[in-house]
């Protein structure tokens, strides 16, 4: 088991390095010239522009620029914003708590709402409850996230005035954004739980448990849920990425100063180094979350545990290979 954990932790390093290289390269081939953006109006003077390019190291070859960026990252230096008089790290540090609060809230909501919903639909298969849940999930899956967010805001904030329209003044301000970014994961969890429970419910051991006279509640908790939830763990882990990406739209609509707003305002002001760094920070958060998910999966699933307990000779299954 320790071997497995070490291996997974070490595997993070090449993934993160690769993500940095990919994002850096995408940005390197950008059509915009950072020196021009930084100078603003005075960029029309070619001498000034050339001086700025030299100062920012833009005249260096690709590998030198990449090397510098990587060295900077090792020191925790994400670069200097083109637009604000701040480092990108400072900008992100001031914004990330709001985004994480929102995303974690959304994931918790997706667990406490999605799983019971899916379980209920599966236990009452082909009844009104099942149809209502399935329809809700399919419908929500077809709605663009920003549309859901705008509708929630209009109904509950503007018309009913239950929650504030924007800002981060109290816990109340987070209710609608959390629901808006959680709606995707909720429906995914519900659908996945439903199909997973339906599969488990037909297994022999469930019939055995029932025929032994165990109470239905205990059968559900111990025999059905415990086995059905294993595939859900992966889904919950991967929903953090969805939430972080969805946060961009949701934060914009509810005017929450988080990473998403930062990305959006940086796109507007062409502060592309900030966009690049935000994407990298999100990728890092997602990678770490995936690691935790894999570890949780290994801890819960006896099959994987056994594979590593009995001499690690067997080839490691592809990470995420269990996801259909």
């Amino acid at each position, binding site marked *: 088991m320790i071997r497995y954990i070490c291996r997974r932790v070490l595997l993070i390093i*090449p*993934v*993160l390095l*690769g*993500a940095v290289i*990919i*994002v850096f390269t*995408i*940005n390197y*081939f*950008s*059509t915009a010239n950072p020196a021009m953006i930084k100078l603003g109006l005075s960029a029309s003077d070619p001498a000034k522009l050339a001086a700025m390019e030299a100062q920012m190291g833009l005249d260096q070859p690709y590998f030198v620029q990449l090397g510098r960026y990587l060295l900077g990252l090792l020191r925790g230096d994400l670069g200097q914003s083109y637009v604000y008089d701040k480092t990108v790290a400072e900008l992100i540090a001031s914004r990330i708590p709001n985004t994480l609060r929102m995303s974690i809230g959304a994931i918790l909501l997706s667990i406490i709402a999605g799983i019971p919903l899916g379980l209920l639909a599966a236990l009452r298969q082909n009844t009104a409850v099942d149809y209502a849940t399935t329809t809700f999930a*399919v*419908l929500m*899956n*077809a*709605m*663009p*996230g*920003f*549309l859901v967010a*705008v509708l929630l805001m*209009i109904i509950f904030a*503007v018309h009913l005035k239950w929650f504030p329209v924007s800002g981060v003044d109290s816990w109340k301000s987070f209710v609608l954004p959390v629901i808006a970014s959680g709606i995707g994961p909720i429906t995914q969890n519900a659908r996945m739980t439903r199909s997973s429970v339906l599969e488990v419910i037909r297994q022999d051991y469930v019939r055995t448990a029932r025929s032994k006279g165990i109470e239905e509640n205990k059968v559900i908790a111990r025999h059905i849920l415990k086995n059905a939830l294993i595939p859900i763990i992966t889904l919950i882990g991967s929903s953090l*990425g*969805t939430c*972080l*990406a*969805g946060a*961009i*739209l949701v934060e*914009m609509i509810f005017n929450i100063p988080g990473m998403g707003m930062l*990305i*959006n305002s940086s*796109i*507007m002001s062409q502060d*592309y180094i900030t*966009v*690049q760094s*935000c*994407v990298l920070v*999100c*990728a890092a958060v*997602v*990678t770490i979350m*995936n690691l935790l998910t894999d570890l949780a999966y290994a801890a819960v699933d006896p099959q994987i545990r056994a594979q590593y307990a009995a001499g690690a000779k067997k080839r490691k299954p*592809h*990470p*995420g*290979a269990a996801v259909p």
Partner: protein
Amino acid sequence: MDNTAKNNKGAVPAKLKKRSNMGEIWHRLCTNPVAVVCMAYLTLLILAIVFADFIAPYDYKAANLKARFQTPSLAHIMGTDDFGRDLFSRLLFGGRTSLLVAVIAVAIGIGAGMVVGAACGYFGMLVDNLLMRLMDIIMAIPGMLLAICVSVSLGPGVVNTALAIALGTIPMIARQLRSSTLLIRNQEYIEASRQFGAGSARIILTHVIPNTLAPIIVQASLYIGGSIMAIAGLSFLGLGVKPPTPEWGNILNNGLDYIYEASTRWHVILFPALIIVVTMLAFNLLGDNLRDAMDPRMRK
């Protein structure tokens, strides 16, 4: 799907089985009311979009500032927008852009994913390791954020937006194709082909890809739905296809600017939203039903 059946001619032993399999799937789809409704809607939509030049009652670019925000009437069945342009015509032409971008994105994603996945599954070892690690890296970056990054770098436009969205789908398709390639790699017909002296490229192109393509093509429906959503999301951020080129996402986004006056200007939000949601729904439901129809466990 016709294409798949044609390609299968190369693999003689698989041909009969696959054909009947496809026929079986088609039969199951046609007896499923949800799938039939989705297919009918999508056919209608695609026809309307292709023949938009003949159907659209007005020029989608023609502004008429005297007729701004007209609610639906006989003259403008979906009303007019903030420039007095006919909303129905704009949605027809916008659908052209949206679907075009989505189809290009899915085509790029499937094409690249197929090559990567087949190469991984077929060659194994070093190639597999290197390419799959690369795919893992791309998957570590949330799809929407990757699309934003690429879109920012490449600038607006139909092909650029399609590329931005496609990049995130490559790993998913590659993975799926890799696992199905692993399953057929040791089949006799591949062995036979190799005995006859066929090279790797030939085997991959004529045997591996055609025999693993069916599930991917079927899932293309789900990917198209996802792409339409992603395009709309990019438009909302001011990326992707920019106005004045109409595109469902930017038409809806434009309408959402007037949400506080929704009581009199509801149509500029309702119709674009409705067409996006219904189209997404049709692609998703069709994809789900196709997947169910292909699932051998669901066979009676």
